[in-house]
């Protein structure tokens, strides 16, 4: 079995308080995420990404369809044995130190006591918090919270990591460090489901990506193919002198200037799909 997450025909409706109407947050979503890949789940705010993640984690039940994690129903707590989850804007027990927090989550993840201590030390070092491990989480900065959150997601050595905005609030150096950890995780054979608004980063980290718009899957595929050459093309050359421009025009008229279409970025595709849906 090479599928880590299988979402088939999943819809989620939320009751609007004080009304008989329902809000469809996710609409007939079908998605398969292969093992040992880094998959980017993108979409504008309110597109249903977080709801999809919550259904994958069994925190909410789908109204229709079913969701399988590592071959088990997402509603089965045993399926979560192989998952590490970093929530968006993580908030942890403020009175625990970083070390205690990782130990606590390690125990919940079923890590044997004999391995736990060493693993906690390694993880603190891996996320760059070795000097802050004995400080209370309540005093951590936003970036440090993301780092300790990433460490708690990895503490159970899970097969699948679900990371919701792992670089939100992290400075560029920290974001690059986290991107590097995600790449290492893929090299270790882990599957990573990543939600992020840093599209340039997603483009460089992810193997495959999907864009959700208004609860529906707008597009899904390998990042390489999503950013393939588009039909529209344009070129711009800055800093040409008048003389150089004349020579270039003459060169083009002689038919010696070869043109090639440009690859669109994931950001361009994202904006195109998001705007298209809102028009």
């Amino acid at each position: 079995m090479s599928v880590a997450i299988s979402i088939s025909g999943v819809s989620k409706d939320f009751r609007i308080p004080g009304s008989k109407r329902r809000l469809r947050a996710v609409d007939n979503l079908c998605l398969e995420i292969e093992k040992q890949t880094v998959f980017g789940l993108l979409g504008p705010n309110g597109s249903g990404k977080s709801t999809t993640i919550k259904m994958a984690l069994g925190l909410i039940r789908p109204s229709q369809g079913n969701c399988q994690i590592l071959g088990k129903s997402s509603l089965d707590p045993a399926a979560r044995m192989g998952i590490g989850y970093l929530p968006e804007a993580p908030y942890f027990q403020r009175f625990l130190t970083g070390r205690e927090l990782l130990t606590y989550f390690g125990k919940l993840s079923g890590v044997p006591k004999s391995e736990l201590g060493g693993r906690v030390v390694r993880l603190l070092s891996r996320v760059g918090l070795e000097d802050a491990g004995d400080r209370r989480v309540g005093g951590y900065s936003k970036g440090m919270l993301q780092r300790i959150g990433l460490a708690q997601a990895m503490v159970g050595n899970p097969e699948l990591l679900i990371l919701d905005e792992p670089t939100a609030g992290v400075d560029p150096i920290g974001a690059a460090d986290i991107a590097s950890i995600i790449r290492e995780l893929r090299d270790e054979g882990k599957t990573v489901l990543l939600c992020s608004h840093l599209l340039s980063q997603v483009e460089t980290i992810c193997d495959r990506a999907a864009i959700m718009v208004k609860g529906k899957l707008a597009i899904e595929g390998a990042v390489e193919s999503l950013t393939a050459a588009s039909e529209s093309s344009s070129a711009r050359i800055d800093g040409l002198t008048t003389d150089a421009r004349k020579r270039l025009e003459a060169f083009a008229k002689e038919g010696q200037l070869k043109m090639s279409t440009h690859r669109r970025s994931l950001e361009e595709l994202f904006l195109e799909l998001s705007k298209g849906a809102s028009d």
Partner: protein
Amino acid sequence: MRLFLAMTGLAICALASSFLFREFNFGSSELKFIADFGFGGMTLFGSALAIIVTAQLFLGEIEHRTAMTLLAKPVFRSEFVLGKFLGVWVTVACFIGMLTLCLVLALWMRESSIRLEYPEGFEQGQRLVQYGGIIWFSLAQVFRIGILCALVILFSTYATSSLFAMVMGVLVWIVGQLQHIAIEARGVVDSLVLKGIYSAVGFALPNFHLYDVGEGLAMGEVLPISLVGKLLLYGALYSAFYLAVATASFNRREL
């Protein structure tokens, strides 16, 4: 922790104040007066602590979204519910344990000074206060408040704010204290509908009045162990029932 210390401090102050009021003991025995203050503080502050801490501990995890990270681990929701219950229950048990110690100490000090003042009133080695009975009584109160904790957890599983769970906890505590009235009324009304309503209330909500058995402990009365056993069983059954319903309710809750 701050709330726990504040409640403990208040309860100890209430107990200490019984020494000041002993001249105004309304005709009761002085030792009984101290014991009543201690038992009252134990029940009142213990219940307040249970209601506030349970609602804050349970709903705090949901409001601060720490429950999401926790339940994304291989943790059953029943384990979450039971863990929260045990956490609060142990806290309340510590509170009652500390108050019991203070109460026993206060009674022993006063009884010893009375023995010195009026040695003729005591036979050799005789003690007025049933100290063993006070410990059994306190254990029964731990189970009484355990029921309250389980009820507040039940309300918290579907409440969206801790205030709602706390208000419901206070209401149920009042109804539970007065429940014996409904039980007595069941025997005197003729209407089958009213009988049914009283029976339903009598079954669905615990009768906290059953636990008020410390009346004569400072006057030499013995608390039968069989009665304590029944109270512990009653508390365990009601707590288990409410926790089972709370788990079913929490399983349906979307985080």
